[in-house]
């Protein structure tokens, strides 16, 4: 793999981009990080992801892989000699894919309502968000990670959201520690990993970013 060219098109607060940063770090893959300005998307992004025009995009030797969970699986398969991210057992793999998909289907939209809306819609978002986290806590159980003893695919799919928690708590007026203590304990455990600590932005920086977004959407 010595002559691999790996580029990541990303946007620093994206919890989806964070998935790829973590996966690449776990695999110790050298790559070029390119920050996109989503208000002014680069020709490279538009060329590499013409269908959705979204980040993150992994570009491996000139070929794009889009959709973050798909790209994490790809990274796992290509750099298979270290740090397996998906379990080897087919049933466990199916469970991992199921939960990563659940996170994509349920968590993002409810979380967005917490910082992006007011009143009834925000309350509904808060309720759904906490419910989601409780379901995920149920799945985690007493395991240190969703993958069991090993940090893996579902942990990677979920941990990026933690960098937005200070923003959720501030704008949603909620305490995740009180509502989902197991989740917070798991998140802090993940944050002790180098790959995670280096890939997640500071929560205060995210808060400032959300503040600007809220003004833009007229929520402030």
């Amino acid at each position, binding site marked *: 793999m010595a002559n691999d060219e790996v580029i990541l098109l990303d946007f620093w607060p994206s919890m989806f981009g964070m998935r790829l940063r973590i996966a690449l770090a776990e695999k110790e893959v050298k790559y070029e990080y390119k920050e996109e300005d989503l208000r002014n998307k680069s020709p490279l992004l538009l060329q590499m992801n013409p269908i959705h025009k979204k980040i993150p995009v992994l570009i491996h030797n000139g070929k794009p892989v889009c959709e973050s969970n798909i790209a994490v699986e790809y990274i796992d*398969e290509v750099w298979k000699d270290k740090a397996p991210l998906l379990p080897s057992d*087919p049933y466990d793999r199916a469970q991992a894919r199921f939960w990563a*998909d659940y996170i994509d289907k349920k968590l993002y939209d409810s979380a967005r309502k917490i910082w992006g809306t007011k009143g009834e819609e925000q309350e509904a978002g808060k309720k759904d968000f906490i419910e989601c986290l409780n379901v995920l806590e149920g799945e985690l159980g007493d395991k240190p990670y969703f993958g069991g003893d090993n940090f893996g695919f579902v942990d990677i799919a979920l941990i990026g959201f933690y960098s937005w928690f200070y923003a959720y708590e501030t704008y949603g007026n909620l305490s995740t520690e009180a509502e989902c203590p197991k989740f917070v304990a798991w998140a802090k455990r993940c944050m002790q990993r180098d790959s995670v600590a280096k890939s997640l932005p500071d929560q205060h920086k995210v808060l400032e970013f959300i503040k600007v977004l809220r003004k833009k959407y007229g929520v402030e």
Partner: protein
Amino acid sequence: MATGSVKLLGVWASPFVNRVEIALKMKSVEPEFILETTLNKSELLLKSNPVYKKIPVLLHDEKPICESLVILQYIDDSWPSGPSILPSDPYDRAIAQFWASYIDEKWYPLVVEFMKAEGKEAKAAVLEKISEGNLLLEEAFIKINKGKSFFGGDRIGYLDIVLGSLLGWVKAIEMMDEMKILDETKMPSLAEWDKRFCSDNVVKDIIPQPEKLAEIHRKFHQMKKATSN
């Protein structure tokens, strides 16, 4: 070679269930088909899929696997000696997963939106978006099939199953609304692929005839109206 009981919770009319049926048939696995009804979900379904409470659910040795795309990959992983469902190359696999996600999250929801839209104008507006998607799928097919008959090459694979399973309902909707969703002049390669897919030995007894689907759609709506009065 995986052993143990194989059960499939579903209904014959669900394209998502059809996907699992096709995949199992490819691997020469005959499941016990447990018929669910949409109106009265069984204890087994609620226990096996507490998160979504939906079919299909595959029960392998009584252990549930949910979400059709997850199930397809599971079947491929669990029965590796049969013909492959997903491509073997990681990049081709990522491309197949990308298009499956596009079909399920963007394209098919538009088809459902088309069905639900009321009036010719509203339907025409949605149809325009679907047509854009159709062109993308046509381009993708030409790129992916590398000159062969199916997305999967010489025989059907993951993307053939994902898109092909939806064709029964797409044609049923075309019949009910008397409007063309799949325009063979604009998607000639996929039109040919459609015929090949539907007549494939593994597929042909599984995807229901559009007429039958249109009929149960009508019956279901009559039933809904009756119970809501």
